[in-house]
């Protein structure tokens, strides 16, 4: 009896793993097809520009406001710790490195997944549910080239720009708390930051992270939308899956990228 129950559990686990691997393979083929059929997205670049507006510009408010507050909180918390060691002049370094290396790409990525990723999934899923995708196919227009690829590249281009703006706004927020409010010396704040933040090891690695997150989030968003069952429930589940899977992917990728970039004597 116990053996039967154990076997049933193992079978369920096996089925789950098999279906996940199958889905990952399907999503990878989808990405390959998408990249191979991206000519339209670049030939008619205004289609991609429209998606940069949709995914990027319309996400600006949440990105900028979040960046400002994250920087301000970082500055407050950082000061509390640094002053114990008499290193409050290094607050600028702490804020900048935290934002550029980690919080900028990661938090901007999470916000991007919630704001733009979910919208991309819902839009493509609803287009499918209302037969707009089928109509396009019937008009001999490849929906992956015409609808999906511009959204994918629009997201990939937007994400590093949003992460950079998030970090810049965060540093500004950190400055507002550190210098006018706490009274840290302005010259020390900026000069220590300038001396400690390295372009290739810090800024470039942060940009690489944000590009990787942009590809991951937008890939998940367009795939979930295109693969969504054409029903209200199907689109709803797909939108939720986009946010959950994207967020987990960002955190997992961040760990892997951080391990590769900032360990082993790199810094």
């Amino acid at each position: 009896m116990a053996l039967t129950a154990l076997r049933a559990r193992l079978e369920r686990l096996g089925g789950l793993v098999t279906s996940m691997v199958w889905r990952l393979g399907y999503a990878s083929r989808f990405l390959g097809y998408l990249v191979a059929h991206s000519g339209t997205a670049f030939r008619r670049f205004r289609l991609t520009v429209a998606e940069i507006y949709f995914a990027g510009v319309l996400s600006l408010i949440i990105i900028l406001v979040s960046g400002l507050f994250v920087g301000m909180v970082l500055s407050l918390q950082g000061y509390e710790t640094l002053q114990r060691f008499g290193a409050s002049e290094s607050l600028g370094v702490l804020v900048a490195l935290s934002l550029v290396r980690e919080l900028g790409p990661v938090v901007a990525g999470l916000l991007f997944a919630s704001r733009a990723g979910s919208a991309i999934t819902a839009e493509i899923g609803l287009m499918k549910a209302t037969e707009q995708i089928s109509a396009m196919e019937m008009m001999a227009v490849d929906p992956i080239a015409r609808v999906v690829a511009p959204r994918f590249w629009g997201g990939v281009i937007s994400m590093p720009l949003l992460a950079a703006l998030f970090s810049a706004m965060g540093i500004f927020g950190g400055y507002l708390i550190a210098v006018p409010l706490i009274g840290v010396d302005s010259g020390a704040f900026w000069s220590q930051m300038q001396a400690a933040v390295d372009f290739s090891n810090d800024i470039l690695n942060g940009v690489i992270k944000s590009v990787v997150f942009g590809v991951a989030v937008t890939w998940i968003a367009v795939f979930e939308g295109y693969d969504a069952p054409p029903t209200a429930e199907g689109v709803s589940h797909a939108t939720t899956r986009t946010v959950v899977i994207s967020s987990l992917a960002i955190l997992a990728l961040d760990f892997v990228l951080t391990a590769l970039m900032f360990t082993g004597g790199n810094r």
Partner: protein
Amino acid sequence: MQQSPAVNEAIVEIEHVSFGYDAARPVLRDVSLAIPRGSVVGIMGQSGHGKTTLLRIIMGAYKPQAGAARVLGHDVAKLDTAGLYAMRRKMGMLFQFGALFTDISVFENVAFPLREHLELPEDLLQDLVMMKLHAVGLRGAAHLMPTELSGGMARRVALARAIALDPQLILYDEPFTGLDPISFGVIVRLIRSLNDSLGATSVIVTHDVQEALDMVDYAWFIGSGRVIAQGRPDAIRGSDEPFVNQFVNGKIEGPVPFHYPAPEYGADLELPAGAARQAA
């Protein structure tokens, strides 16, 4: 009843086609029909009995698992994606609820296939779109967004978009669903007049039998995935075939039962055997 239309040149030939979404559920079984060029034909029958699947085989969305579908001279199962798209440029399709792109205007919806396939000067494109919209009576609605249209207007815009590239074959998937009587009449008239003026062939999938029989040249009845009757409208109306008779006249009694197969009524209500018969 007549067994086949007088086919001089068939634009669509379906030969012994079988298809199922999975092995346990065959949707089409050994279906054969030939649609003559220039005609308006109807494919009729109950919902869920294979009409739309047959339409999707004609448009090349599904490949038959047995038999052959020849459309516009092509065996659709043997076409690659490029070949399929080349064939579809000669076809137009009106979806059940129009399937208009909701983020662009009526004008841009009709212009969509022209912009995608032809590199026309903007003024010529403008003229062509206005001509198509004029043909469906909606030139004045060019600036509206699809969300501002009634169901009937949306269907007419979708029709203008379907004929934008002057197709040889126009497919209609339940074009009358949810229309008020005036819109209904307008769509019926448009399908016939556009077909004749474009020299096209129209295939209408519908379960609005009485109205469709008023406008088609020939009709096929699909039931349980098979062609169970076919003929000209007058022959269909006079048919004594039980299914056609029930379907055309909307009778409750007939070969199509009112009740979906279920266990004994009394058993579901947990009644004793005698009381069960009374409850039924």
